[in-house]
């Protein structure tokens, strides 16, 4: 009789261990996939009712204590974080890469195809004013550079693309960019083509054009060039 009881106890233990292990797997996966730290009550919803969530968290904290990733209590919830002594592996101040905005993509594409091009010309093509930050982002990303100044009233700055632009977009040369027929063939342009829709042959030859002057005084603020 005593033996039978012991066996039942063993079995119950085993069941409890099993339930705890399963709960640990669940909480682990939830914390891993979550964008934000998750509060204990939130985690408890996905865990078998007979397993207290505190047990699960204590268990995980212990499991991960000496690992490369540890379980932290942050902002009223729990999250996995890189172990502090391995912080050197990370670039904490760096933000994860963000998608380039639609406006920036359009501006970049116009500069690529129509270079050398002034800000006013970009706005003429896009039909909207270019936000201050948009060109900054492209300059900072190293995809766009100041080429020179257009030999026209106000001497606006001209923009062009950089080798870094080619590199990022996997282009060998700037005229790898598809022409109108190719854009159409690949389905980028649909329907009947407007007669006056033309796509220039892109050219990033760094030498200045006939109507371009050297940048010259770099201290002249960029906006001045566009003021007229």
């Amino acid at each position, binding site marked *: 009789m005593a033996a039978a009881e012991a066996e039942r106890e063993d079995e119950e233990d085993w069941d409890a261990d099993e339930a705890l292990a399963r709960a640990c797997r669940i909480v682990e996966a939830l914390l891993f996939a979550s964008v934000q730290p998750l509060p204990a009550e939130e985690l408890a919803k996905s865990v078998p009712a007979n397993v207290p969530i505190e047990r699960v968290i204590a268990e995980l904290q212990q499991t991960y204590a000496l690992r490369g990733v540890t379980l932290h209590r942050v902002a009223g919830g729990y999250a996995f974080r890189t172990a502090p002594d391995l912080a050197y*592996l990370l670039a*904490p101040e760096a933000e994860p890469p963000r998608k380039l905005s639609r406006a920036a993509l359009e501006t970049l594409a116009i500069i690529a195809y129509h270079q050398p091009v002034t800000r006013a010309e970009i706005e003429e093509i896009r039909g909207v004013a270019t936000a201050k930050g948009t060109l900054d982002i492209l300059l900072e990303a190293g995809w766009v550079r100041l080429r020179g100044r257009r030999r026209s009233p106000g001497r606006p700055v001209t923009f062009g693309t950089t080798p870094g632009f080619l590199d990022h977009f996997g282009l060998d040369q700037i005229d790898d960019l598809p022409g109108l027929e190719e854009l159409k063939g*690949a389905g980028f342009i649909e329907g009947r083509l407007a007669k006056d829709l033309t796509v220039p042959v892109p050219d990033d030859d760094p030498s200045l054009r006939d109507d371009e002057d050297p940048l010259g005084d770099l201290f002249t603020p960029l906006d001045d060039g566009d003021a007229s």
Partner: protein
Amino acid sequence: MAAELPFQEDGTPERASGEPSLVIDVDGYEGPLDLLLDLARRQKVDLARISILALAEQYLSFIETARALRLELAADYLVMAAWLAYLKSRMLLPEPPKGEEPSAADLATALALRLKRLETIRAAAQRLAIRERLGRDVFARGAPEVIASSGRPVWEAELYDLLAAYAQQRQKRIRQPMSVGQRQVLSLVEAREALARLVGEAGEWTAIDGYLTRYMRSHGLPAETMTATVRASSLSAMLEMVREGLLDLRQDGAFSPLYVRRRSARPPTLGL
């Protein structure tokens, strides 16, 4: 089970397999090859040993039934039907002496191979679809961190995004200013109204050109853009009024002035 279409959950209507009568369901097929493959499956034999002749006949009878029901068939289906009718005739007739064209047997084999290839790639696609997919079955870290040595760019953009943005933007801008200006025309109704007044005035032969010029001036219609439409509509209206017996028209020679006169109330001459 192995013979079942692997894609039925994709909203494709269920297709009865192995039924003797053909189910007319053109919408359910993705083109003639898809239809042929389904018909071939109903032969319940390996595609490599299929009777292409029987298949051609089934396809042609399918098309006939569809036409009898006045179902609209895409041109693709009719092209395939024409080709299969040709293949069928080639297979039934004795083979001509070796010529330029491939033999009927070669054509039949090629078709069987094409069907097999489609079936194979469908199976492969199905195998792909049931794999564990990222974002559906397995998940990546929700709050990733940036690795110091990665040197990854701060901004993400694909060539595809760049081209799509450029193409859409250019197209949008080009389309915007395109507006079709309203064409200025003198409608037939208006022309008839103008002529009805003339009928009142023209008891004798009257030059129509002079009348129309006066009409345009008095109604503020610009001569440079409206003359052609006024002339055309007026001529149509005049012919209509001649037919109704309201007017007589006279022209002494080609390109000479056109004269118009109210028809007198006498009955039309017999035999005219």
